[in-house]
């Protein structure tokens, strides 16, 4: 693999709450290369969104990035002054937020929000910025983009809004896009349409993409590699097909067994038993141990370190499943 666009090392983000310190992102490391799609999967509350915000340096008090490096093309973003970060955000790294209904400012027209983004990063006239905005809308398949520019977010459907947000992300041809479940709010046909359009555009431009989702089936179709998050940690990573065929972490296996389309017809779906743990003052051992069918005393006493397993796979587990990678 060529040098990664984004390289995250030991990223740890904590929130000081009244109940105690929440470690939302706990020693996360991963790389994304040019044109590569990294799928980040995990249950609700596993820290996917906070990982994305941490990369952008958008963690507000009481949260803080407690440790780690975020290298964009080799430059550590955590040491950059805030003014430099303003220049990067939206230009070199774009983020697509989770909820398309809440993302665009309700009292500003689409053109205002697109043009302000362009003009924050490019020294172009208002008229030129408007042209660029219309081109970006056309690119994501919005009909009559010039008229669409003059509408307010509430005058558009959820699917349209999500396309607008995707257009804004693609508009300035960033090196990296962080897409936080950008299609969960959409129906299945539109979802696959948007997915394939994004795939095409990103491949053309060699843009790196981090695709955050609950949905393993989306990841299977889109991602090159997958990182499975549990309670703020990446518990398993690997190339997508290999990992889905031969999960080594009991949690990954549990996730796969609970997807309706992944098991043969007539087989009962197996939900992962138990609940996601509270992140306040986690016990010392493996966070998944209380729910894990294979957990031993070792698991409850100590945190498993990450072990490389060859073929680009890595794992945090004392009792990996017997699969031959």
């Amino acid at each position: 693999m060529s040098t990664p666009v984004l390289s995250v090392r030991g990223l740890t983000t904590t929130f000081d709450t009244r109940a105690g310190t929440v470690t939302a992102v706990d020693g996360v490391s991963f790389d994304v290369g040019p044109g590569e799609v990294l799928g980040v999967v995990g249950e609700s509350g596993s820290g996917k969104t906070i990982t994305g915000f941490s990369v952008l340096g958008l963690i507000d008090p009481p949260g803080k990035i407690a440790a780690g490096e975020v290298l964009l093309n080799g430059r550590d973003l955590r040491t950059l002054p805030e003014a430099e970060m303003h220049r990067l955000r939206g230009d070199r790294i774009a983020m697509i937020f989770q909820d398309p209904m809440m993302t665009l400012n309700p009292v500003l027209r689409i053109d205002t929000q697109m043009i302000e983004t362009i003009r924050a990063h490019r020294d172009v006239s208002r008229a030129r910025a408007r042209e660029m905005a219309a081109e970006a809308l056309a690119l994501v398949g919005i009909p009559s983009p010039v008229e669409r520019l003059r509408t307010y977010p509430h005058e558009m459907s959820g699917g349209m809004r999500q396309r607008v947000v995707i257009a804004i992300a693609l508009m300035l041809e960033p090196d990296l896009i962080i897409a936080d479940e950008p299609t969960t709010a959409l129906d299945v046909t539109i979802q696959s349409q948007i997915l394939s359009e994004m795939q095409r555009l990103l491949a053309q431009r060699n843009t790196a993409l981090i695709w955050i989702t609950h949905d393993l089936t989306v990841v299977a179709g889109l991602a090159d590699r997958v990182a499975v998050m549990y309670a703020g940690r990446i518990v398993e990573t690997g190339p997508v097909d290999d990992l889905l065929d031969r999960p080594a972490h009991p949690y990954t296996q549990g996730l796969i067994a609970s997807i309706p389309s992944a098991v043969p017809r007539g087989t009962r779906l197996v939900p992962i038993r138990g609940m996601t743990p509270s992140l306040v003052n986690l016990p010392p051992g493996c966070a998944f141990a209380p729910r894990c069918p294979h957990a031993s005393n070792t698991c409850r006493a100590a945190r498993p370190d990450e072990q490389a397993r060859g073929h680009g796979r890595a794992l945090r587990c004392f009792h990996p499943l017997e699969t031959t990678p």
Partner: protein
Amino acid sequence: MLAYLIRRLSQALLVMAVMATIVFFGLYAVGNPVDLLINPEADLAEQEATIRRLGLDKPVHVQFGYFLGGLVQGDLGTSFVHNRPALELILSRLPATLELAFLGILIAIVLGIPLGMIAGLRPDAPSSKLIMAGSVIGFSTPNFWQGLMLIMLFAVFLGWLPAGGRGDTVDVLGIPVSFLTWDGLSHLILPAVNVAIFKMSLVIRLTRAGTSEVALQDYVKYARARGLSPTRVVGVHILKNILIPVVTVLGLETGNVIAFAVVTETVFAWPGIGKLLIDSIGLLDRPVVVAYLMLTVFLFVMINLVVDIAYSILDPRVRIRGAKA
């Protein structure tokens, strides 16, 4: 839109009619102005003549009939005391009050909104605590006391500004205004500040509440994630979303200041309509009181109309339609 305007105006007329009727009979019931108006030294014939001239010898329903007759011709009656048309009397005093009210409101907006935003954005900073403490004092101490303190400090101790009266005026389009002469302005400042303090405290609280709520919205984080400058995020994305409650309350408050600036006008001997109302009630000058209250109702309806229109400009989701009023 036209249907909407007509509806609003006819509502206003109805309220004005009801109001005029109630006040007319109410004041009749309170007492006989003749006892206050006529020089007790005057001889009987002279007294009779005056009573007849004012129409007070007729039964009340006949007097009301005359009043209605005059109303149709746009005549609101003639002041018992000043022997001038009531409307003319009020209008001659109105510029002084309008000037006072608008300057007061302007000060409240120009200072209140930024202070409220500072307090809302950084709630734990010492400056924010100071602002909020100030607004509690401004909010909870009586207006007349604030006025007296202002006079004590700036007129008596420091001697910077005059304690009362209106000072020099110049005519603009036939309307006397003070803010264009230095002497007039120096007379205007203290009463305007007196009017402003309470409104400003109100604006600060509203703005702070709105800001701290809006600042947490996804679209604000998204604006930051697009690399917009903090000035643009705060000055456009947050500000535009908090203006709606502020505009509503300020609209109502503007009406209040104009109609009931009595306290400030009395403390500072400001020759506005508030002082005229108090004097007229004291003398049972019925035509002036009735005309004054009708004008007030009209003013409130107009201000509400302006506020509604401002809404539809500020919030694209609100559209004025004839069907709903």
